[in-house]
């Protein structure tokens, strides 16, 4: 059965502030080169689901910029493709209801609805097959109270939307009130999944888990597509030491990096020390600076010999100079 996709990316929770001050959780930079939404988008595209709507906040400039060139996900299509659906949505039900035109025009019978702040790498074919085999009305993955993904028949979806259009949340309000009338199945999987809006701890855990090769592969195999920046391979100079770390393209590393993730186009100069930290893209760590347990947002600069060392996580907001 054919399916189309819908991604909720409009929800601007502030559970990861200051990281989520400047972007919604779906737009959080993860694993050095991706944004959270790349994982759901790529899972859709790889399953041949190429009509995808993304609900986003009108002020989510970072996300709009990320999705600007649809060809990077192969979604610049004459039939289907990427539909950016901006608005000021009150909740998931509102986000769907205000886009019933998009839902109605889709020729596909099934809707796969995903939360854009969830990081996973899944084969949606398996989910669809399970949904059909179980003859379910709705099949979901994740927490029964707050799933990561669910599949629903398009016409059932529209019916629920019109019947409960005054409610806010599609799952917690609308589905919950008719739960007993529907056949709802849970699809269980062992693949690693992270819901980033849960908070900083989940965000940090995702990165530290990924330093295990099996987890890293499970999350990134079979192509996770993202916005290209065309950087050269990472360069490691004579003075560097790298232990259990991910270092992205465009980086120039002269310092010591332990158990950390370094994002694209970052520079860690000789004598600098970075441990248990996550550096997003375009970060500069100058000579002799020391970072332990730091999450550094994009374009942050650590001046020479500065120290940010703590047993707790320290988050450095975007474009800050330390």
């Amino acid at each position: 059965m054919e399916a189309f996709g819908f991604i909720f990316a409009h929800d601007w929770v502030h559970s990861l502030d200051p990281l989520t001050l400047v972007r919604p959780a779906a737009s959080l930079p993860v694993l050095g080169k991706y944004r959270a939404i790349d994982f759901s988008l790529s899972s859709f595209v790889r399953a041949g689901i190429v009509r995808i709507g993304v609900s986003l906040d009108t002020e989510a400039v970072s996300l709009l910029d990320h999705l600007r060139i649809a060809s990077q996900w192969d979604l610049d299509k004459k039939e289907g493709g990427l539909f950016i659906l901006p608005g000021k949505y009150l909740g998931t039900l509102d986000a769907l209801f205000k886009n019933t035109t998009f839902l109605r025009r889709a020729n596909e019978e099934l809707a796969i609805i995903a939360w854009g702040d969830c990081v996973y790498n899944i084969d949606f074919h398996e989910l669809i097959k399970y949904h059909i085999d179980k003859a379910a009305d709705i099949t979901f993955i994740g927490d029964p109270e707050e799933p990561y993904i669910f599949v629903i028949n398009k016409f059932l979806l529209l019916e629920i939307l019109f019947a409960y259009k005054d409610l806010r949340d599609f799952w917690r309000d609308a589905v919950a009130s008719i739960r007993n009338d529907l056949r709802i199945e849970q699809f269980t999987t062992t693949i690693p999944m992270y819901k980033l809006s849960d908070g900083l701890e989940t965000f940090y855990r995702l990165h530290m888990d990924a330093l295990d090769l099996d987890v890293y592969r499970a999350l990134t195999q079979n192509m996770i597509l993202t916005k290209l920046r065309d950087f050269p391979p990472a360069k490691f100079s004579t003075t560097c030491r790298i232990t259990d770390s991910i270092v992205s393209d465009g980086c120039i590393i002269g310092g010591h990096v332990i158990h950390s993730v370094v994002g694209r186009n970052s520079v860690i100069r000789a004598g600098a020390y970075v441990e248990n930290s996550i550096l997003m893209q375009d970060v500069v760590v100058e000579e002799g600076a020391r970072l332990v347990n730091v999450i550094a947002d994009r374009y942050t600069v650590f001046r020479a010999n500065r120290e940010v060392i703590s047993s707790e996580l320290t988050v450095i907001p975007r474009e800050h100079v330390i």
Partner: protein
Amino acid sequence: MKVLALILAGGTGTRLGVLTETLAKPSVYFGGKYRIIDFALSNCAHSQLEGIAILPQYRPVELISHVAMGRPWDFVRRTSYFAVLPPHKEWYQGTADAVFQNIEYIDYLKPDTVLILSADHVYLMDYRPLLKYMDLKNARAVLAATTVSWEEACRYGTVITDEHERVLEFQEKPAEPKSNLVNMGIYAFHWSYLRELLLEDSVKEESTHDFGGDIWPRIVASGEPAYAYRFDGYWLDVGTIKSFWEGHMDLVAPFPRLNLYDPRWKIYTNPADLPSPIFLGSGSARSTLVSEGSVVKGNILRSVIGLQTFIDDDAEVVESVIGPRSYVGKGAKLYRVITGESVCIEDGVVIGEGEEVPNEVAPQIYTDGITVIGRNATIIKGSHLGKQVAVQEGAVVNGVYGSGAFIYRQ
């Protein structure tokens, strides 16, 4: 159309030995994630040329699929033209013949100027100053020239100019060069003038239909005021195993002469969509480039690691260029090795140790102590290979081979 660039991509690259056994020279991987043709294509993109055509010949399939209708270089536009023109009448006899056989297409686009480029060179160059120079000199023909060392000059076409840079003499691969200013294989012509030259050349029986060998000597002999445009940036003709290897050693130098990190002149390629490289355990990389998708557990020194390559525990890779999708096994030791893609080097293999002995089949190709392994080859557990060894594509190597061996596919 003002300018149409024609990228000649037919090179067989025979002096790259087993690296070009079934691969055209422009398709050879360079710098970890790139292929050689990416440099010329990216230069065209940044020079904002509106018409680009690639003329492949030898082994075109992989090249055409890599170029992907020009999309990675943003050539897919409604207001520009991009074409791949493999031979469609008969095999291209020479570089000039390749253009001659496509007169129909060029006439259709009606360019004022045709820019002839080669897909075999690694360099970053803005072609717009060259085109402007042509206007200033009021010339119908301009070639780009650069200086090389006197020892190397005999590999190229040398150019002798007067004080106004007018080309006075042109010698193709002279035994005793009179100049170390050499032809870069980059020419700009007024299309009407070049068209005339090509028609004239096509009926000359003694002609090899080559720009360097026939067209340019004729231009100079006719007294046409043609000029040399001097280019003083980094320019590498990836002609030999030695220059291929040296080009990579240039990249791993602390301040490389070829700057891949210039945000205004990025090199674009057909993307592989791979995750960032991961380093596990005690692995180390020093003076090294590591491409996306790679996993590093071993130790790497002064090397370039291709896409999605796995360097396993305690492996030692020194002054080597490892092709994409390759595996270097536990405890393997590689010194000055170049591999093609998808090469499997099993545990405990040692390559590149021993005396320097000339290669038994092609001593002029496999030089400077460099061992070259063709793509899809497997070097079985515990094997030892010396220096200047060549391993054919797809060969399965088992045992001890001294320096200078040439290992055939079974």
